């Protein structure tokens, strides 16, 4: 058997979770939100997106988790910041994030940048999750109204 991977999104509290099929960013705290229904106002921030990578079923070890933006350029005034090393849940906010404070990598980082159990060298040997990956979009008043470019995020892991 091999590991079964799934995204888990955390919403209003640490037990309020959903299974996202996208990481759309917007002005509401919801998984799979409709961007046109919940747009981001220029000069503000999106809701933070708090997700984990979950691994279940049969595997020997999961480690070396890497996350980056693999496609989709920013429009003028748009940036996305993130962290992959948050261990404790905190309610997502539309204020500037205290956690997603580093520009999202735009290339394969080459080494783990998402922690497991509080460590970038951590691993899973049974069903479990990575630590939190937190994303937030920032839009300045220089941004034009409308849809931004679709982004693709890649999450890579080693399975033994």
């Amino acid at each position: 058997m091999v590991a079964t991977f799934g995204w888990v999104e955390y919403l209003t509290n640490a037990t309020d979770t959903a299974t996202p099929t996208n990481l759309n960013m917007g002005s509401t705290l919801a998984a799979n939100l409709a961007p046109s229904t919940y747009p981001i106002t220029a000069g503000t921030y999106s809701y933070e997106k708090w997700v984990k990578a979950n691994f279940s079923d049969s595997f020997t070890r999961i480690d070396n988790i890497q996350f980056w933006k693999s496609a989709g350029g920013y429009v003028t005034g748009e940036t996305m910041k993130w962290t992959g090393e948050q261990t404790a849940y905190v309610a997502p906010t539309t204020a500037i994030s205290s956690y997603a404070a580093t520009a999202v990598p735009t290339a394969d980082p080459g080494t783990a940048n998402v922690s497991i159990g509080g460590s970038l060298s951590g691993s899973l040997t049974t069903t479990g999750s990575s630590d939190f990956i937190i994303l937030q979009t920032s839009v300045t008043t220089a941004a034009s109204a409308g849809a931004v470019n679709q982004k693709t995020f890649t999450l890579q892991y080693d399975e033994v």
Partner: protein
Amino acid sequence: MVVSKTKLGSVTILIGTDGEVAQALSNEHVPGSRIISVGYNGSNTTARYFAGGRNIVKKTIGSRANIV
């Protein structure tokens, strides 16, 4: 069972669900070989390959937003 398995030179193409291809990869990897699979599910894809003695898995997910 994978639906299809085709060998083109040093490349093996497996077609099936992600779970099926992953299982085949787990069963069949050989040191020095490189087996790649890509699955598609909505905006999400899966790629797997074997390198350096490890199974490496890449998952993608899309993200959109609108500005007002």
